[in-house]
């Protein structure tokens, strides 16, 4: 799935770029360019879940929004089942929106506190004129059943629900227009472990029932391993490694992937990792290090790493794996 002449099914993202310019002007601070997305390419096969992992400031949330054009990319191609998404505008873009939806991280901010659940779910159907009022009411009730909430929830307001229940409502809303592609931005990060598992189970069931493609953005490697067949690791606006999730976590080729995996706590006191307290910060996206962005933290850094930014290269002998490193592990 890494070839650029992509088959028409699924979603392909090529060389996405998004920079933010801040400051400047008469009284502002010095002009700064924040390279939120420096160069990102992804492929999401139809009906599969692909993970996008990284820490704060790596740009994964920006990628999530750029792929849906909620944030306009500066450059790059986004192709969804053969449709050039960036070329759409006006009515065509609004129609496309039915096909690709977003599930949010914060269940407390993702629902309008002044609307009932019914209003929240009916609104998209009414705006897109998808059915008579009776049909819409039935669709909404079916949506509630699908996410496992009782029909009487419809007349209630967001504040009456717990975090997990709100997340279910958010998922119902994302599915109400019958999309085939869901971008989930940290959908379970704000939830307790037991509720997390419920929501992940729900998402998996929905994926299987509806054949949805997923772009699953998360910082939690355990969750990504559970849900995503393929994963890309992001660092400071670039993809540093990608491939089948189990493989890249069990046998990482990029030093950052290894660091990420090693730092992810495992519920097994017998496997205590050596904790290092030395402060090593994530660099700012406004002022990235030259060459490979990871080199200041990399134990294997050499001269070439400081000078030249590595491009993703396929990993020999392993299908679908790429790594962006001059000296892969």
């Amino acid at each position, binding site marked *: 799935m890494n070839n650029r002449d992509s088959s028409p099914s699924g979603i392909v993202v090529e060389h996405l770029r998004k920079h933010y310019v801040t400051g400047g002007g008469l009284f502002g601070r010095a002009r700064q360019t924040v390279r939120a997305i420096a160069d990102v390419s992804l492929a999401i096969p139809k009906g599969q879940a692909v993970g996008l992992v990284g820490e704060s400031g790596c740009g994964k949330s920006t990628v999530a929004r750029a792929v849906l054009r909620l944030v306009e990319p500066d450059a790059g191609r986004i192709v969804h089942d053969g449709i050039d998404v960036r070329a759409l505008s006006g009515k065509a873009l609004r129609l496309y929106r039915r096909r690709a939806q977003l599930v949010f991280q914060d269940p407390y901010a993702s629902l309008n506190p002044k609307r009932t659940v019914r209003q929240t779910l009916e609104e998209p159907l009414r705006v897109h004129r998808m059915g008579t009022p009776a049909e819409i009411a039935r669709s909404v009730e079916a949506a509630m059943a699908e996410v496992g909430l009782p029909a009487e929830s419809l007349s209630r307001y967001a504040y009456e629900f717990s975090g997990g229940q709100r997340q279910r409502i958010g998922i119902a809303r994302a599915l109400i227009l019958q999309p085939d592609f869901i971008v989930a931005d940290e959908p379970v990060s704000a939830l307790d472990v*037991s509720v997390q598992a419920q929501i992940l189970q729900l998402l998996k069931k929905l994926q299987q029932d509806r054949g949805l493609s997923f772009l699953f953005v998360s910082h939690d*490697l355990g969750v990504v391993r559970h849900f995503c067949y393929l994963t890309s690791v992001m660092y400071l606006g670039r993809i540093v490694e990608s491939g089948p999730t189990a493989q890249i976590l069990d046998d990482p080729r990029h030093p950052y992937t290894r660091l990420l995996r090693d*730092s992810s706590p495992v519920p097994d006191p017998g496997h205590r990792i050596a*904790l*290092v307290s030395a402060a090593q910060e994530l660099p700012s996206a406004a002022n990235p290090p030259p060459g490979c962005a990871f080199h200041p933290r990399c134990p294997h850094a050499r001269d070439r790493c400081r000078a030249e930014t590595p491009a993703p290269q396929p990993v020999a002998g392993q299908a679908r794996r790429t790594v962006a490193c001059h000296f892969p592990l």
Partner: protein
Amino acid sequence: MNRTVSSSACAAESVLDIRGMRTEFLIDGQWHAAVRDLSLTVRRNETLAIVGESGSGKSMTALSVLGLLPAKGARIGAGQVMFEGQDLARLSERQMRRIRGNRIAMVFQEPMTSLNPTMRVGEQIGESLRAHKGVSRAEARRQAVQLLLQVGIPSAQTRLDDYPHQFSGGMRQRVMIAMAIACQPTLLLADEPTTALDVTIQAQVLAVLNELKASQGMSMVFITHNLGAVALIADRVAVMYAGEIVELAPVADLYARPVHPYTEALLAAMPRVDRVNEDLRPIPGGVPSIRALPAGCAYADRCPLKIDRCETEAPRLAPLPGDVEHPVRCFVRNPEMT
């Protein structure tokens, strides 16, 4: 630096002894318990983790110990909190102030809101020293530099005069820790100190906490919902559900042989980075509201092992036969109780 070997259970000298504590909230004119009949001891130089999800009462426990409950509508309804010979629950606000930041310190989840954004970091650390130890401004400053170095902040001398917003999240948390340990407290309460941090930064901060615990001989109560972080640094673990401790065990035992159905379910629901997670089993249902606690076991509704007795009678926290270090609150799994 690797963490030190865990303290053995034989060093049983306790630093904090909570006995039958009940923390209540006034809701619609009635008192409801968020923490019920909690008994816990924290031993010298040990890291006790309190694990639970939302509504378990774990944060309330820490706030109750330090008397940080809201003035109106919350109270410690029963029990004692024994610390250095005094019952903290009975002390006046003035007396508590002498203990907070001095003998018992607390670190919170969000360093940005817990640090004063308009005060330089050095001053904030020094504040604690000057208030409790009465040192001079210059001496407080000197000690603050040492503390920043101890928590691993490079260029401590210059960073002393920086404001909190000039630090990243992980650094701010280190500053908070520096403030907390400034007066060399006997006990550190850490309420989700790494939850808001990235995973690589979390590892660093946990290492800092470990090092400090070793070098200062202090005890730590580590409150979290993250079972992975607990496995990394805890000596003993208390699992809380709906305001009660349901299981308490040394860390290796808890993970290898979880006894209470909730502990077991929690571990089975957690996706792991190191192995395939096909069998991720969610726990159905939700935590009961504190206004509607069932008469019997609070977990009964969601428990696959439930028997009739569980719904009518509330189990006590009793040690497993032959293992005094591992109390469990369950009729089915704890033979002591049948």
